[in-house]
């Protein structure tokens, strides 16, 4: 972008003998504020990249899936404020149970029915006799659409609405993904650009540090940290971001920055009197940015999976996420319930998988835009 700006200014000063129309055109260009030229260039490159991205059907599917998840995240607070009664639908402290009429054992014939009868007497009072109907409150309850309080995906073992939990957790997942991806990119581009630009001992130090972080097994490390401290969603996002940003991503972005460092416009910027920081942040970093979008997408995928895994082990200090939902099902003894209690395991597990899937295929689509060799011929 900056190189275009420079040439236009240059042309204005030189355009003396040319024909009028061209001079007027260049003058018009020179009079346009710089942000407008930038916007126009950005729009043009965006349109070109979008056309390339559109060829990848899978990438479009990913975008659509992300959009659906975004809608899910947005409608939860709206539903809570309007339709849903917080006492029943709150994802963490809500409670509802479906009342079901059950007949106590008709007749005691074997030890099993005897035990069931005794159990019923213990639960519903000693006056309960054979053949009575009693009201049992079901939790986890299967999906119900009827009644005053419909539960589209049933309730969990503690009587909380699964659908509400699912929507609520979507917001948390987006928050985590955004924090982790932005932190990763922020650190990785800065570290990569600085290491590539200065070289020498700065480069050596930063890269050895990256090597050290690469040695660290991410999941065990986060398990230790989340066992030692009470870590919430934002902190986890920052942690993943910092570890990735100083580790593997920084190394990849450094090699990209090295390729940019030897370009002529970097020399031009330096000759024009640009300081180190100016060259790094105005010329190198913007040119590395397209690649960073890619890492943002893959970073989101990774962060979602890590969060869900840590929550699954019950190590994070978060009220409700998809991982916590699966953890609840597991700790309450529904781990191998499979299809009998499908609403406990499948919505949450599929949500984690599909959101990660969506970001990953969008990332792959971007990869094809950036890396021409992968495109279909």
């Amino acid at each position, binding site marked *: 972008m900056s190189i275009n700006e420079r040439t236009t200014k240059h042309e204005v000063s030189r355009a003396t003998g040319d024909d009028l129309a061209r001079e007027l055109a260049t003058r018009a260009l020179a009079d346009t504020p710089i942000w407008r030229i930038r916007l126009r260039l950005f729009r043009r490159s965006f349109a070109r990249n979008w056309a390339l991205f559109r060829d990848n059907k899978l990438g479009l599917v990913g975008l659509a899936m992300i959009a659906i998840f975004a809608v899910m995240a947005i409608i939860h607070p709206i539903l809570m404020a309007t339709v849903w009664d917080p006492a029943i639908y709150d994802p963490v402290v809500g409670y509802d149970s479906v009342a079901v009429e059950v007949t106590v054992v008709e007749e005691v014939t074997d030890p099993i029915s005897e035990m069931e009868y005794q159990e019923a007497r213990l639960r519903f009072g000693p006056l309960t006799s054979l053949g009575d109907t009693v009201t049992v409150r079901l939790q986890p309850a299967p999906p119900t659409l009827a009644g005053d309080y419909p539960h589209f995906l049933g309730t969990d073992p503690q009587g909380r609405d699964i659908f509400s939990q699912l929507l609520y957790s979507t917001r948390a997942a987006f928050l985590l993904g955004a924090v982790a991806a932005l932190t990763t990119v922020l650190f990785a581009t800065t570290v990569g650009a600085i290491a590539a630009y200065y070289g020498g001992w700065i480069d050596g130090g930063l890269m050895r540090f990256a090597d050290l972080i690469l040695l*660290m097994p991410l999941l065990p490390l986060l398990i230790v940290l989340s066992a030692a401290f009470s870590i919430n969603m934002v902190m986890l996002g920052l942690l993943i971001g910092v570890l990735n940003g100083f580790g593997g991503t920084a190394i990849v972005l450094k090699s990209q920055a090295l390729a940019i460092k030897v370009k002529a416009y970097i020399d031009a910027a330096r000759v024009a009197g640009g300081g180190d920081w100016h060259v790094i942040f105005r010329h190198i970093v913007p040119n590395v940015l397209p690649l960073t979008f890619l890492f943002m997408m893959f970073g989101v995928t990774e962060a979602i999976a890590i969060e869900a895994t840590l929550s699954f082990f019950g190590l994070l200090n978060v009220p409700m996420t998809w991982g916590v939902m699966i953890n609840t099902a597991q700790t309450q003894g529904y781990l191998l319930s499979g299809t009998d209690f499908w609403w406990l395991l499948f919505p949450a597990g599929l949500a984690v*998988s599909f959101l990660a899937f969506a970001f990953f295929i969008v990332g792959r689509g971007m990869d094809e835009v950036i890396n021409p060799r992968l495109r279909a011929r």
Partner: protein
Amino acid sequence: MIKFLLRRFIQMGILFVIFLSVIWLILQLMPGDVSDTLIGDPSIPLTARADLRARLGLDQPLHIQYFTYITNFFRGDLGVSFSRYPQEVSAILWNALPRTLYLFLTATLFAFWLGFKTGKLIAWGRGGKTEQGLIVGGVFLQTVFYPWFAIVMLWLFGFFLGWFPIGRFIDARLWQGAPFLANDVFELIVLTVVITGVLYGLMRLAIKRFATNPVVEHRLRQGAALVTVGGLLLYWYLSPMRTYAADIAHHTVLPVVTLGLVAFGATMLLTRSSMLETLGEDYILTARAKGLHDRAIRDRHAARNAMLPVTTSLVLALAFVIGGGIITETIFSWPGMGLIFLQAIGVNDLPLAIGALSITGVLALVGHLVADILYTVLDPRIRIS
């Protein structure tokens, strides 16, 4: 080369000491210590807790604990486990490491073999319905929420269909009064499998050298596979440990398949994109211009070069077995390093946790080195400098 290796070893040594110090420090940050486990029992007097702390050296200042640990570590003494008190950490880890490595090696090698083949084929015949389907499947396997996937697999094959046992390493009822130790049988299994693999590899090399005709070579290769695998099965069929070995093998299938499926997705996608990059190279055009057979171009020219990133990722994946092992081993109750690490963290058993992590560090360091050396072997254009 020697100079490179020497410098590399020194670097690795320094890096490892820093790594060890960092994880030691992080683990010290965990609140409380192992004596907290005694709080629950009111009949244990306070002095007993103080006694325990003194006996384990936990009452000493941190820097003394640190230097004691580090010096002992490099003398080969990893300390005594707090939670399994009289046992040495190194003995526990030495016991568990083969189980983890075996699980991962089988799963990863199989997944990489299959993933490489599939990835190669779909990159070559680009643009079909099969390719799209395989890509979607591969991406799904790569991004699926792994604990959930493992639970579903366990439920489907272990509980619903009942084909495989639900978790664990052996069936306790069968092993009651068994004349063998489970670990001995297991180690023998590992040994025989490794010998079979090496034999097969040697036979393949010999076939490649002496076979003249590709068709004959193919037949010979199939024969070699048949002979080695048949020999392995025959050996175990005749062995007195037959039923016990079969029990262990039966327990291994489900975790290996689950882990392998996930690795398969990732390898296939990586091979495909790596293969697409190589197919754009000039030497592929040259090979085509020479009029070579399609299969020769695909297997000998493109796939060979596409193997580079795949091999690196294989070696690096092996370096992180413990991190990945935590989930698999927890869900399948597989008594390996990951499970031991998780249990150690839960009860503040610092020596055991650090020991497990230090093995990860060693594996990662060696993995990086092996990856670098493999690179120069696979691609002679890259020189070590």
